């Protein structure tokens, strides 16, 4: 990430390209685009130092719509392409815009390896739990028994929990947000952009054509308060329409308690610690909503710092140069037993 401040202050308009946006009217991708365009000006990065890389999918059309350096790659390979970019020029701020099929189906291997290596990429996963561009097959995040074009009798695939998978790789920044919560989404994009190391942000995104309403139980007014808990560092986990419910740890198990009946107070609740180094803590949060009655967490599950791959690589280059001197072609050629023929 470049640290040199841009000479000019940017506005969202600076990040809008001249291309017609070709998503379906009503698609959640529009909101994500808008929030990215609103957030980038807040990062201390020059426009020309951003690169957006994507694979293939509706979501992967993203780079065309931001007026930045962009690479619309091939299906699933965006993390690899982005890695090459970042390693050659570590000053760039390299982002991956991808879908649940692109990143987690065909691209799964590159994803887990980028996480493992802590390459300084920002990965925005547009998770609509469906293959949009190919017109509606189930994806690795679709729920079991899902009826789609390729599963007319219901799929027999258990879904990935992308946040849990990322935590399994020990990714250094793992967060979740929703297309229909613009403020929160902006905050998460900002946080991802500021993180030094691999930042993984899962964004629940509505595909109103092939999977409409997949997240309405989390995003729509009538359900949201009871089904979503916002993770905030240093604060207790509280949710509910009247902020009347909290999460308490019963040993290693999170449970919901009422704050109304006087039995439990805020002080009894789990206080969120983003910086907990133990992946098991974030894993507990990631699996929370699989238990009946527990809400889905959004926010930053985990943020830790450890040297990034690109840092260590370039540090190694620096050290070797220090020790051996700048590489000299002639020296290299002659670095063997030689003899002369006259």
């Amino acid at each position, binding site marked *: 990430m470049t640290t040199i401040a841009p000479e000019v202050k940017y506005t969202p308009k600076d990040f809008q*390209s001249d*291309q017609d946006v070709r998503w379906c009217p009503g698609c959640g991708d529009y909101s994500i685009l808008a929030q990215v365009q609103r957030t980038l000006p807040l990062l201390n990065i*020059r*426009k*020309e*130092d*951003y*690169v957006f*890389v994507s694979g*293939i999918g509706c979501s992967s059309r993203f*780079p*065309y719509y931001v*007026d*930045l*350096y*962009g*690479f*619309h*790659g*091939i299906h699933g*390979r965006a993390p*690899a*392409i*982005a*890695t*090459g*970019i*970042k*390693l*050659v*020029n570590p*000053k*760039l701020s390299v982002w991956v815009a991808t879908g649940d099929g692109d990143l987690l189906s065909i691209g799964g*291997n*590159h994803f887990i*390896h980028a996480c493992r290596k802590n390459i300084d990429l920002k990965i925005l996963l547009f998770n609509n739990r469906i293959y949009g561009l190919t017109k509606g097959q189930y994806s690795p995040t679709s729920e079991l028994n899902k009826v789609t074009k390729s599963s007319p009798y219901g799929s027999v695939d258990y879904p990935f929990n992308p946040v849990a998978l990322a935590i399994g790789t020990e990714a250094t920044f793992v967060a979740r947000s929703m297309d229909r919560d613009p403020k929160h989404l902006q905050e998460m994009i900002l946080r991802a952009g500021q993180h030094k190391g691999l930042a993984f942000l899962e964004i629940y995104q509505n595909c109103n054509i092939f999977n409409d309403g997949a997240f309405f139980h989390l995003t729509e007014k009538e359900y949201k308060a009871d089904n979503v808990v916002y993770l905030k560092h240093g604060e207790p986990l509280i949710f509910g329409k009247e902020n009347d419910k909290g999460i308490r740890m019963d040993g290693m198990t999170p449970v919901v308690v009422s704050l109304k009946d006087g039995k439990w107070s805020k002080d009894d609740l789990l206080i969120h610690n983003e910086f907990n180094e133990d992946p098991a803590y974030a894993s507990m949060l990631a699996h929370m909503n699989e238990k009946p009655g527990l809400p889905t967490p959004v926010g930053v599950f985990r943020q830790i710092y450890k040297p990034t791959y690109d840092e260590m*690589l370039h540090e*190694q*280059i620096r050290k*070797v*140069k220090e*020790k*051996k*001197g*700048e*590489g000299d*072609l*002639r020296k*290299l*050629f*002659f670095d*063997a*037993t*030689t*003899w*002369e*023929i*006259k």
Partner: protein
Amino acid sequence: MEKEIKEITHVTIRFAGDSGDGMQLTGNIFGDTTALVGNDLSTLPDYPSEIRAPAGTLYGVSGFQLHFGSQEIYTPGDQPDVLVAMNPAALKVNLKDLYPGAIIIVNEDAFDQKNLQLAHFESNPLEDGSLSQFQVIKVPITTLTLNALEGMGLSMKEMTRCKNFFVLGLTYWMFDRPLEPTINWIKEKFGKNPKIAEANEKALKAGYYFGDTAEIFTMRFSVKPAKLEPGIYRNIMGNEAIALGFVAASKKAGIPLFQGSYPITPASEILHELSALRNYDVITFQAEDEIAGICTAIGASFAGGLGVTTTSGPGFSLKSEAMGLAVMAELPLVIVDVQRAGPSTGMPTKTEQGDLLQALFGRNGEAPIPIIAAKSPADCFNAAYEASRIAIKYMTPVIVMSEGYIAQGAEPWRIPNPEDLPEIEVNFAKPEDFQETKFQPYLRNELNVRPWAIPGTPGLEHRIGGLEKRHITGEVTSDPANHEFMVKLREQKIQKIADEIPPQEVYGDPEGDLLVLGWGGTFGAIRDAVNRVRAKGYKVSQAHLFYINPMPKNLGEILHNFNKILIPELNLGQLAFVIRAKYLVPVYQLNKIQGLPFRSSEVENKIYELLGVK
């Protein structure tokens, strides 16, 4: 007793033993010394795919062949004149390759019941007369080594380990080589362990003196220095040469080198070599698989580096899709395919030329990529360098074809002066050039090449990718006429490279009865064969392709100047297929698909057959 020294022009020797016997090291040191005395040479290791096969087994035999001479040497030799066999298995495995009359030096000590059985010998070949056509020299190598090292306080294991230096000394005596360079090498290498250094030196000398004094040797040989082009030389392996070619290109271009690769036999050494060159601005990225290897390299090129990816057949297959992306994105990229015997996993440590048609056509859609093929270990340097130059100049992926045979083989390389290497100019697009109009990523120069505008450059923000793009603007479009235009343009851009590459050279007369056309590692065997038949007065010439796509412009003309064309290949006839399709000329084929290089005699015999010579 003074022993006669016979002068010979060239000789092939093969060292063979168990994987643990140190035959690779022996061969390499012998090669270094041989080079130092001024012979031309060519070497080839041949080891099993098992890492450490059990001692004494047939599949555990490791060999190293060396061909050296006072004339130009083009191959590691057809059939050994001298075989050193450290145990029965080594004898068994190599016997079929020997010249009748060849000298066999065996480690007599190793011919015990157990080893004979492991080697599937029913009786002891040293005793049953089955080797009567050879000159067998039985030496109790183990015993003699142990004797020489007695009293040094070394363990049995340490002492036995030295026997390869005994062998080395013995062969030095046979071929009249000096001991000093090796003694120096030993001192340097084992500096930290002076006892071992001393032991190895002792063993070396013991071998040498044994040759001198023992009654069993009646003959010594001497090979005069070869007349090579003046210059400073070193030995180089093909994979090493590829690595150096890339570093040279990146330095000349002034951009960082990025290698995204996944280990695979027989290409891994390129990764090993480059990963040691951090101070040369070399970034090696050991990727999670071959697809990530090429994709990271493509990303690296987008960011302004020289992206390269290196692999062998199975990995090359996996890169197909991404190669298409590089074609569409029009970014510099070099893909090295060190071919091995296929199909599928095939025979990983064996050589072949089976991937040519895949290199030409193994991508969906019309996706033309220039192809360059190295003909020898040292030529790998040229191939990697020239491929990089073309990739950068034409903003295109380029494929370099190598083969296990030349990748693992070595030969002397006349070290070039870095200043003399062809220039590689990099012209990143500059904001100044696009002040009037918006930046147009698919605007083209007179060679149809688009600009390379790298992230970090203000004002040139643009998007590329795998979808068809509109000419000049680079916008995504499925306009029919534009697509046809772009497909043809991409093809023409590659074909136009033929305008600048040198015309195909013909070795021998420009016309005649037979042209032997080849590519890649068959060069040496063909050259030897052609030399031999030409020496007999036949009108036979050789043309060897370095540029396979596009082909040199004059090739068609050359082909028409000969009555017959012979194409020897280590496949079922892939270049032959292309030549027939492109030039509509009939060709004769010589195909060998055995995981082994050609013997020049095989090519020679085929030539005689086609000439009607009995």
